[in-house]
């Protein structure tokens, strides 16, 4: 054991003497620090903006004058997707998703004004965030620092020298691995501090913080082991470096790009326009409330009349137009929900395929752990869309209900009369509050990916021991 430590310490000393290693590590730490500060600053700015917008939208909605309730249905409401402080650590899909949802009757709008729509293609080069530093840059730094740990000793002939001096293969191997693992730990440190701090800001809870932490520790351990292994099999330092860069480019640059392309192609989504057209068509097929002879709405009228025990809509104690609006909205919203569910289902099928590819590329697995843990993934966005839709439906039906009860049928059908009801009816309607997906749900989503990372780690550790035992053969 002490020999393992000695070897690790020796390697560490060599690294400290290596000027390029020290400079690149310092640059990386500087970059991480910048990433954290910038991400936090951007977060505070964007969050402030959205909070202002939301409270303004709430105020203008509450301040609307006396109106016909159906005008309020068309006036609608705006809800803004609140940012989660964890987005400063890992913004996930944040830049690509709409931040504002316009809620109105009869229609389901898309969430609009994502960052990508008001930015240049620079955003596609990736964003400098702690997550980007850890997922993409940290492995690269580890490669630069560690490609030669064993290969260089072999190239210089010092490896055989050590082994003949009684150092065993495993001692050599694990000593080197230990040193690189400590370096990886140091690399992780600033990001971890920021993670801990943001997690308290976001009230993330121990479970998720620990899961994200474990994800990154495992991820960097995978790279550490991979680097030492490649270095152990390469005959020369340069071979190890080129081989590792090829591996890195394949796993961190190539696979994350090619996989979504193939998946999007294999599982195409329905376009917004086709969805709209289909919903409209299905709605028309169900019934047309404007058509006096429509079978569906005639049956509806008969049912209403029967339940109130009257024979004419004029005799109803409530406004029949309001009841029609309620029924119409119920029908459209059911269709919206069916299509949204179908669309979310398709997207989840795509995402599941992506997670499957994560088995082959640990970077995808760590992205899953990080995004889902932080609550900046597709599911968190869909939760916002779903809650927005639920709020829309509740609000519209509240207003339709008002039309049914606060206005009479005679007044409402009199075209010469301006019907308005008191604004008190909507001033006190509760505001929209977004509830992010629960911890249990997020843990459930990220745990398979955590398992994948653990599996990779286990396999590589086993492979390490196997190859370490065979290191002494190099003497022959």
């Amino acid at each position, binding site marked *: 054991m002490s020999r393992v430590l000695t070897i690790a310490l020796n390697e560490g000393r060599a690294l400290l003497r290596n000027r390029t290693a020290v400079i690149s590590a310092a640059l990386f730490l500087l970059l991480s620090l910048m990433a954290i500060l910038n991400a936090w600053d951007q977060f505070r700015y964007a969050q402030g903006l959205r909070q202002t917008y939301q409270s303004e939208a709430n105020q203008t909605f509450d301040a609307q004058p006396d109106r016909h309730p159906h005008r309020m249905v068309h006036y609608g409401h705006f809800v803004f997707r609140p940012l989660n402080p964890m987005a400063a650590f890992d913004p996930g899909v944040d830049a690509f998703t709409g931040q504002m949802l316009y809620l109105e009757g009869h229609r389901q709008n898309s969430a609009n004004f994502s960052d990508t729509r008001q930015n240049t293609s620079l955003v596609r080069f990736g964003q400098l965030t702690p997550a980007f530093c850890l997922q*993409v840059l940290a492995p690269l730094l580890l490669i630069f620092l560690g490609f030669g740990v064993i290969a260089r000793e072999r190239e210089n002939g010092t490896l055989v020298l050590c082994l003949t001096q009684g150092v065993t293969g495993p001692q050599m191997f694990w000593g080197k691995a230990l040193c690189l693992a400590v370096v990886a730990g140091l690399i992780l440190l600033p990001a971890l501090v920021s993670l801990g701090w943001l997690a308290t800001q976001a009230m993330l809870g121990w479970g998720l913080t620990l899961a994200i932490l474990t994800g990154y520790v495992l991820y960097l351990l995978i790279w550490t082991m991979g680097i030492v292994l490649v270095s152990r099999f390469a005959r020369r330092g*340069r071979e190890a470096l080129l081989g590792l860069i090829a591996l890195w480019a394949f796993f961190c640059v190539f696979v994350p790009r090619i996989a979504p392309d193939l998946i999007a192609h294999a599982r195409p989504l329905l376009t917004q326009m086709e969805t709209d057209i289909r919903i409209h068509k299905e709605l028309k097929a169900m019934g047309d409330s404007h058509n006096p002879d429509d079978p569906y709405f005639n049956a509806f009228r008969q049912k209403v009349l029967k339940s109130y025990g009257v024979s004419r809509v004029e005799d109803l104690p409530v406004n029949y137009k309001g009841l029609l609006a309620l029924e119409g909205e119920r029908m459209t919203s059911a269709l919206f929900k069916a299509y949204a569910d179908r669309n979310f289902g398709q997207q989840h099928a795509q995402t599941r395929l992506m997670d499957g590819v994560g088995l082959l590329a640990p970077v995808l697995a760590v992205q899953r752990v990080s995004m889902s843990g932080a609550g900046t993934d597709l599911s968190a966005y869909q939760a916002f869309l779903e809650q927005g839709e639920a709020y829309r439906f509740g609000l519209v039906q509240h207003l339709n209900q008002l039309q049914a009860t606060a206005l009479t049928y005679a007044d409402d059908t009199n075209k010469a009369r301006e019907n308005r009801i008191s604004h008190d009816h909507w001033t006190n309607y509760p505001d929209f509050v977004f509830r992010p997906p629960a911890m249990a749900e997020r843990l459930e989503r990220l745990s398979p990916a955590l398992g994948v990372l653990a599996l990779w780690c286990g396999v590589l550790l086993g492979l390490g021991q196997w190859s370490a035992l065979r290191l002494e053969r190099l003497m022959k």
Partner: protein
Amino acid sequence: MTMLRFEWLLLIRSRLTLAALIVLSVLSIFAVARGLHEVARQNAVIAHLETLQKNDMSDLAKAYGPEGDAGYAAYYSFHHTFDPPSRLAFAALGQRDVLPYNLRVRALGLQAQLYEGDIFNPELALPGRFDLSFVLVYLTPLFLVVLLHDLVSGEAESGRLSLLRAAPKAGIALWLRRAALRSALVFAAVAVPFVAGAVIAQAPVAGVMGGVALIALYVMFWTALCLLTAAFGFGSRINALVLLSQWVILVLVAPTLAHIAISRSVPVPQGVDIVLKHRQLVHGAWEVPKDLTMQRFFHSHPEWKATAPLGKTFEWKWYFAFHHVGDESVAADVATYRGRILQRQALAEGVGYLLPSVGVQAAMERLGDTDIRGYLSYQDQIKTFHTALRRFYYPYIFNKTPFPEPEYAKVPRFEPRSYGGGIGGFYLLTLAALSAGLGGGGVWLMRKRIV
């Protein structure tokens, strides 16, 4: 010539070199195939939606035609606008995966419709597309590093360098020849699939030449960097490390820093503001005296001033007037919003003069017309169409002309915009100058230090 043949023989005997070139060719071919496929898919989506829209329109004509009210026709009928990919889009799919290329609009206020998006999976959009511009900007430099990092040092390490120096006619010609041959092959590995793809896509010749020039210059730039690095006379390992660090900075780190700098220095007024203001105006119109709205509308449309005054009941002409007045009232905000986005884009293109990675990516997207500029001109096309649509319906609505079923066939049809992309000659020149400068510096240093 014979010397070049010997170089070729050396090259094809090196397994690493050959493997690198084959892998790069395969990646390029695959990227071009993916790009062509994606372009075909986008065209198919547009065609499919066009059919759906036609059927929807004829249903609408049947449903509202008998009533003959132009107000209903204008209110209920949506129109398909679309932005087909250009013939060069296959090489750089750009932002077309996150920016919509289909949008339905109707004659109501445009600003409430213009910012709707299409459905896409943001998790899949996150890493960016796999297209030829990606292979060129990200991967090609890595292959060049693999092929050129041991240009001189490889000979030094195998002990042949002193021998080569002692040979008659020694000089740096050997290194230049070797570098030229290898980078020419790298260029061919990317450019040949590009040209083949362009032929399949029937792309305009000028654009194809521009793309080829861009590929050549980017390969030259990285070759120049490799030469310069080799000239310092380090070992192969250090060369590889230095070159890879340059790659990391140019391709991974500097663009993200530039993005931060640009989005901080040019804050885009939130598009949200436009929509909020527009909605306030449009829905507030029910509270504003109707005549006031009409006066505002007549200000820009005096030709309808003489029509019958408004009665007490609801009238379509007032409805469409206040929708348009809403659009007019936010026109200044829209112009600022758009201007700022363009300013950001111009800055990003400016950064491209210093960072060829950013510059070449931007130039490829400009060539394919798939960047934010292309999207903004699609928006302009929508705006033009929307104006034509409004002006088509106005006579029916203001003169209360009946709008029976046959009239539906006369509704204006959307014409897609024409190709607005291209390549900046000035940018190509700057890139050439930059590469020449670096390469020249490398040659000068090599002469001084190695020979």
